[in-house]
């Protein structure tokens, strides 16, 4: 197998080359080279996934193997989950770069290099086995993301959105660094496995403080309530192809980092039963809050951003359950959500390209000319509501199979987010009902990303969402995918096998052949959820045809100003909320007796 370092090195070198010669390189060549680089990452990471599913591989840079218990060098731990997430990153980056082919504005030649740095940093973050290395990749990916978010510098709004995003996430990154410093001070180690071994059984204030600092850092990226305020602002202003990477993979990466650090570093100190409520509670609140805000939103991209908050909350909830089934479901959910959310953002980008606006009231009835785009959008909405036949449904069924009481939260979040997407579809593509209420954020429109004279929809705008939806459906009919998620989950949970892989470069084979228990998904429940989502959407758009006291979906849609005003757009407020969240997390951890 080629070295896993190529996952990071190739995008970074190509990025440097494109940036250095950006005045000389024609647009088509920059597009071609970046798409090929993304594709290379996808193929390489997929090959590594297959390789790593058979046995967890560890790559030590410069052959600096551990001496005894002391990890001297920096190691990449190539396990099933990490490699698969890196492959998903490669796929989404390839499609995003293809989507922005030729037409999309490219920020004076900086767009392609930034996208490739973003890709390289995320790939490294997925597989690294070193805590400080993780921080560096995290910051590299954040910095590229800040710049990509504020790429449209002709308008002040993108700058404000990117500024809020940058300030909030940088404060979080320094909290993370403080946590890393604390862990280093007590263990003298930076390798995840080594810290984990040294901390096993330790249970004191310092470890608790490090836990709270690190988890805050990751949860800000994962947009858990009340750390989520930056996310809608950033998504509303970033270019479409960048939004795909933000929602599809960067935000879930925050959660993935939290999971990785918990599984390796803290699992020996705080048992899963102790942290259970911390993440289940945070996930449930985030899922419901995000769902509610999503339904109340009328700026299409911001609406999708709130649905990302909601679905990442559901994944956080699955993380809190911390069982084989919950984690299998979480991995299925992560991949499926990434694909479906990417498809929806791509489709929203088509609307922006064709009609030069992204606000729901302004788009009313104008989408009738685009029947195929309408099909994609509606399928995306059903997929988001986890209708049977989409991989999201398989993931959701896995998570709730051992914890039936979480079904209610999945139901409400799925119905609200899926319902909101279908509502937009009904109004925009079919012109049903009325324009609906408007709001401040929908009045702030977005500058189109493409030339005004191009009214056609070329294949490279249509192909990426089609492929995403197709893949999200196809994955449910591919049993190997579920099996791979299962064996990744089993190994992700087990710190001893991780540490064994790091120190002996081998994993107990019996872990890998663990049989997957068969699961009969509850088809009826999936149909009910999809039906409710569609029903809610129809109810909301046809609200004038029902008696006044039965119009509660339109209250849910239009009368949420008190809660919406929390989203104030002021970086100071967001950091204040971050501090409050940090205090709540710390107090909860203390109170739960962690």
């Amino acid at each position: 197998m080629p070295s896993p370092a190529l996952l990071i090195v190739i995008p970074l070198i190509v990025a440097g080359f494109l940036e250095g010669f950006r005045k000389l390189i024609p647009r088509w060549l920059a597009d071609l080279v970046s798409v090929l680089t993304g594709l290379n990452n996808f193929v390489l990471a997929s090959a590594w996934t297959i390789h790593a599913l058979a046995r967890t591989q560890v790559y030590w840079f410069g052959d600096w193997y551990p001496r005894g218990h002391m990890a001297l060098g920096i190691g990449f731990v190539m396990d099933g989950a990490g490699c698969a997430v890196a492959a998903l990153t490669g796929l989404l980056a390839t499609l995003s770069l293809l989507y922005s082919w030729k037409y999309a504005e490219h920020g004076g030649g900086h767009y392609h290099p930034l996208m490739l740095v973003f890709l390289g940093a995320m790939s490294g973050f997925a597989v690294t086995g070193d805590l400080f290395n993780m921080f560096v990749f995290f910051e590299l990916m954040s910095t590229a993301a800040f710049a990509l978010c504020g790429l449209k510098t002709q308008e002040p709004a993108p700058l404000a959105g990117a500024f809020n995003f940058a300030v909030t996430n940088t404060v979080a990154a320094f909290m993370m660094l403080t946590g890393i410093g604390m862990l280093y001070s007590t263990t003298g180690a930076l390798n995840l496995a080594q810290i984990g071994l040294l901390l096993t059984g330790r249970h004191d204030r310092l470890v608790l403080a490090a836990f709270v600092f690190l988890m805050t850092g990751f949860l800000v990226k994962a947009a858990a309530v009340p750390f989520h305020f930056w996310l809608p602002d950033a998504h509303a202003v970033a270019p479409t192809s960048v939004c795909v990477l933000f929602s599809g993979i960067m935000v879930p990466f925050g959660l993935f980092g939290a999971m990785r650090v918990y599984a390796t570093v803290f699992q020996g100190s705080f048992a899963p039963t102790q942290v259970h409520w911390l993440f289940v509670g945070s996930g449930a609140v985030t899922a419901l809050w995000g769902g509610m805000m999503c339904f109340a939103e009328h700026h299409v991209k911001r609406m999708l951003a709130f649905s990302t908050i909601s679905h990442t909350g559901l994944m956080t909830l699955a993380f809190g359950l911390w069982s084989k089934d919950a984690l299998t479901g979480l991995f299925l959910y992560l991949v499926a959500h990434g694909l479906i959310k990417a498809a929806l953002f791509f489709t929203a980008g088509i609307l922006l390209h064709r009609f030069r606006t992204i606000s729901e009231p302004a788009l009313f009835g104008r989408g009738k000319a685009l029947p195929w785009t309408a099909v994609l959008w509606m399928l995306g909405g059903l997929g988001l509501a986890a209708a049977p036949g989409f991989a999201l449904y398989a993931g959701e069924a896995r998570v709730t199979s051992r914890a039936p009481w979480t079904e209610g939260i999945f139901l409400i979040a799925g119905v609200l987010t899926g319902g909101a997407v279908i509502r937009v579809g009904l109004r925009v593509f079919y012109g049903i009902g009325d324009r609906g209420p408007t709001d401040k954020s929908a009045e702030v429109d977005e500058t189109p990303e493409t030339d005004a004279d191009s009214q056609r929809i070329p294949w490279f705008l249509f192909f990426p969402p089609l492929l995403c939806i197709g893949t999200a459906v196809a994955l449910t009919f591919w049993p190997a995918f579920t099996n791979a998620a299962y064996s990744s989950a089993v190994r992700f949970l087990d710190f001893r096998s991780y540490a064994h892989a790091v120190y002996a470069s081998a994993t107990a084979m019996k872990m890998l052949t663990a049989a997957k228990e068969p699961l009969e998904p509850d088809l009826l429940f999936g149909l009910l959820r999809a039906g409710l989502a569609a029903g809610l959407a129809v109810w909301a758009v046809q609200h004038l045809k029902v008696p006044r006291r039965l119009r509660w979906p339109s209250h849910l849609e239009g009368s949420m100003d008190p809660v919406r005003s929390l989203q104030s757009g002021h970086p100071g407020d967001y950091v204040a909320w971050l501090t409050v969240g940090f205090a709540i997390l710390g107090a909860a951890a203390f109170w739960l007796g962690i």
Partner: protein
Amino acid sequence: MLADFPYYIAAWIFLCGLYGIVRSRHLVHTVICLTILQSSTYVLLLAIGFRAGGYAPVFAGISPGVVTVDPVVQSLMLTDIVVETTVVALLLAMVVKAFEKGGTTSPDDLRFMRG
């Protein structure tokens, strides 16, 4: 007690930076407060690596076994500085652009995305 002093300083600087960002009325002020918040991590990391009577970790010309301060945290700090410089440069560039396009440097006047 005295050995713990740098940690209190680090916490104090962190809180100063946080307070500054929350109360900020000017974007440049916000960015500077972010660098203040960040310097708390310098103090923290250096305090962690400090050894009383330790030499600078330059291993040329000193005999093995001589106590030095921890070089790992110093390299962490160096990386930290690089990260911080990048972010601050980017943020200040955004402030300049925001002033050019919006004619203001107050976060209150740049709130386009509300609700």
